[in-house]
């Protein structure tokens, strides 16, 4: 958590081009160009339970849960994969589902006790679909970190340990 205090407001007719708005919070693309004043976050989701550092207590029924959001509108659907993206199942959204707001999704999952890779993929009401990490990097390079919205993968080991993976 990083609390910011609003100390002053100055109204200007054009950007001041301060250090942070030019050299820090700009997204350097793979081709050397940089995106500036990129305010909206594109459609994104992440599974928060289970997630890195947690341990599943044995095979059986578990609830997968996470949050999705889009700076361009309302979350229309979230799909979840437990096989690293080979197959997807739509996860019901939990009301309220509001524009530009965190949206909770849940899906019951019967874990068979073998290694698995969990992913979530959100779609917003503009039709935008959260990309795989590789697709995001192919489009934007390795340095556009401030607006990274690729799919997040968690590996589940046979002993239940959940870890961050690129998959």
């Amino acid at each position, binding site marked *: 958590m990083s609390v910011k205090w609003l100390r*002053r407001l100055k109204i200007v007719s054009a950007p001041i081009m301060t*250090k942070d708005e*030019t050299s820090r919070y700009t997204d*350097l693309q793979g081709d050397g*160009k*940089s995106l*500036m004043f990129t305010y909206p976050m594109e459609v994104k989701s992440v599974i928060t339970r289970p997630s890195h550092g947690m341990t599943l207590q044995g095979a059986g029924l578990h609830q997968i849960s996470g949050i999705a959001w889009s700076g361009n509108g309302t979350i229309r659907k979230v799909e979840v994969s437990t096989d690293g993206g080979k197959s997807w199942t739509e996860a019901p959204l939990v009301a309220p589902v509001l524009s530009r707001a965190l949206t909770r999704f849940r899906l019951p999952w019967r874990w068979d006790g073998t290694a698995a890779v969990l992913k979530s993929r959100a779609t917003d009401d503009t039709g935008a679909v959260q990309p795989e990490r590789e697709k995001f990097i192919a489009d934007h390079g390795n340095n556009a970190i401030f607006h990274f919205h690729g799919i997040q993968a968690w590996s589940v080991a046979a002993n239940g340990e959940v870890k961050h993976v690129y998959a």
Partner: protein
Amino acid sequence: MSTRDLVCVALALVVGGCAGASMTPSGMESPNLGREATPGQIAGWDISVGPDGVGLPPGKGTPATGATVYEQKCQVCHGAKGAGQPNDRLVGGHGTLASKAPVRTIGSYWPYATTVFDYVRRSMPYIQPQTLSDDEVYAVTAYLLNLNGIIGENDEMNAQTLPKVKMPNQSNFIVVYPSRGK
């Protein structure tokens, strides 16, 4: 000045005074916290410099005088001749932005020279911000621009010359929002 005072000063600039209840909605009493910012306080904070040079103060400096200031006030954090370490590298990196290991410095990345002046004046040296004179800030700015090969070693930076400096990466920024030219 406490954080709460600063917030109240900020509010004072917007709504015309924390002490006055006249601006509060539907006649509610304000908590009467804080006090109005003085013209001197506002002037001290109102130091932003735009890319067109608006806000630049009188003064001047050259790379030669800037080298002296840099060695005394900046080098301990930014290395000899802006080479970096322990903190940000300030020089070089040209031609690396499209590579796997881009080096973003003032010279290779920053789109406007005025930003160097604005940032150094308001924030540097890190442990003693706003202790440099305007001449010293112009000089350090000139020194860093010269080290990056952007201005000549005898070029003087002042309120007229600095906004005219063309930074090499300026044309590589794409403004996403609001969309321009429509």
